[in-house]
């Protein structure tokens, strides 16, 4: 059957993909959501993991054998990076959502650049990414370093 164009033209979930076409703030929105969902999944898993304590040392050690593996360490490293990015970017968002750090409205002139997309709040995104990378490296040194 021939596919006739859909009247509904909303981008849907596809609109969340390819965030790079609109600049850094769109990328940070996408990462904030991704890390949030990832951290929620880790949180639920962590609560389940620690509940094995209630069944005594054998159950706990069995759980440790499952999680203290190279794959487990890699996941934990990812979690460290995600939580650092989500927290630092979250602080930036709390300020910007309250209208702080965005500049004052005025009289727009060519080339009509938006003042809210200024480098002061944009740098918050970069700081979040850099801190996440640093935290991941430190985490790797602790987890894989083996003290």
């Amino acid at each position, binding site marked *: 059957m021939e596919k006739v*164009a859909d009247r509904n033209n909303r981008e849907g979930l596809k*609109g969340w993909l390819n965030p790079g076409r609109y600049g850094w703030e769109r990328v940070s929105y996408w990462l904030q959501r991704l890390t949030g969902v990832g951290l929620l999944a880790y949180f639920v898993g962590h609560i389940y993991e620690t509940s094995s304590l209630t069944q005594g040392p054998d159950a706990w050690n069995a759980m440790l054998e499952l999680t203290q593996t190279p794959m487990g360490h890699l996941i934990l490293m990812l979690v460290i990076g995600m939580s650092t990015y989500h927290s630092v970017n979250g602080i930036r968002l709390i300020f910007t959502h309250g209208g702080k750090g965005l500049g004052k409205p005025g009289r727009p002139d060519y080339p009509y650049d938006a003042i809210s997309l200024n480098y002061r709040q944009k740098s918050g995104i970069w700081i979040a990414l850099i801190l996440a990378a640093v935290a991941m490296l430190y985490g790797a040194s602790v987890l894989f370093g083996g003290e």
Partner: protein
Amino acid sequence: MTEQVIEKIETMDKKRAREKHEKEHPKSSVTLKIYRANRLAGERAHYDSIEVPVQRWTTVLDALLYAKEYKDASIGIRYSCRMASCGSCGMKINGIPRLACYTKVSELEGSTITVEPLANFPHIRDLVTDFSQFFAHHRDMQPYIQNEQADIKDMNKLSEFMQSPEDLDKFLQFSYCIKCGLCYSACPTVATDTKFPGPQALSQAYRYFIDNRDTAGKERTKIVDDRHGIWRCHFAGSCSSVCPKGVDPALGIQLLRGHLLGFSKNEKKNAELKERLKREGD
């Protein structure tokens, strides 16, 4: 030796100038890849490729109108002023919502330009979309000054709101909105949330909220304080990055949210309504 160095520098300079000149006038023709779909005629959605001659100053709208005039008269396009003032010719150009009259072919990369209808608006035909829900969201924000003192029925009185330039600057840039819909098309929340009013409506809510001739601030905050209202904006900033008039809707929305969160105390002092002239016979 020095002469050789100078010659070398001259050759390099000439090469650089030539490359720059070539960059400015690279194309004498482009291929327009136009989205075509006519649902009422049962036509399948497809892209038509049409070659169009261009000059340094040719805009995408010029190219489309050339294609419509000389190659295929059935292309559906909406346009009017051709000078980024009416907001009619919004469309997706190479994947990003832009005004066709405000986008020069020379500022786009590649020799193929993909032109599609604006996303997030119900599709009518080819490049034409339905703006009724967009306007309905705007109307929901009560986009007019509400002030009981201003008696518009008494035509004998001529009064003026004493608004200073500083008061004006607080909302002026948001009043420059031409309702082109590019921001609505770029917003990631509008992409999935059918009840979200969109950046245009929300920034107009701020425009009237912060205007000190308006006294309905509390009611306006009630309108946007909703499960699908201002709280579903996450400052992805795409609206402001595509706005052609420098309205910066993201700024308006975050400033309004600042008032809702208590970050900004409402220091708005209502403008005094002063009687200026009395007509004769009073």
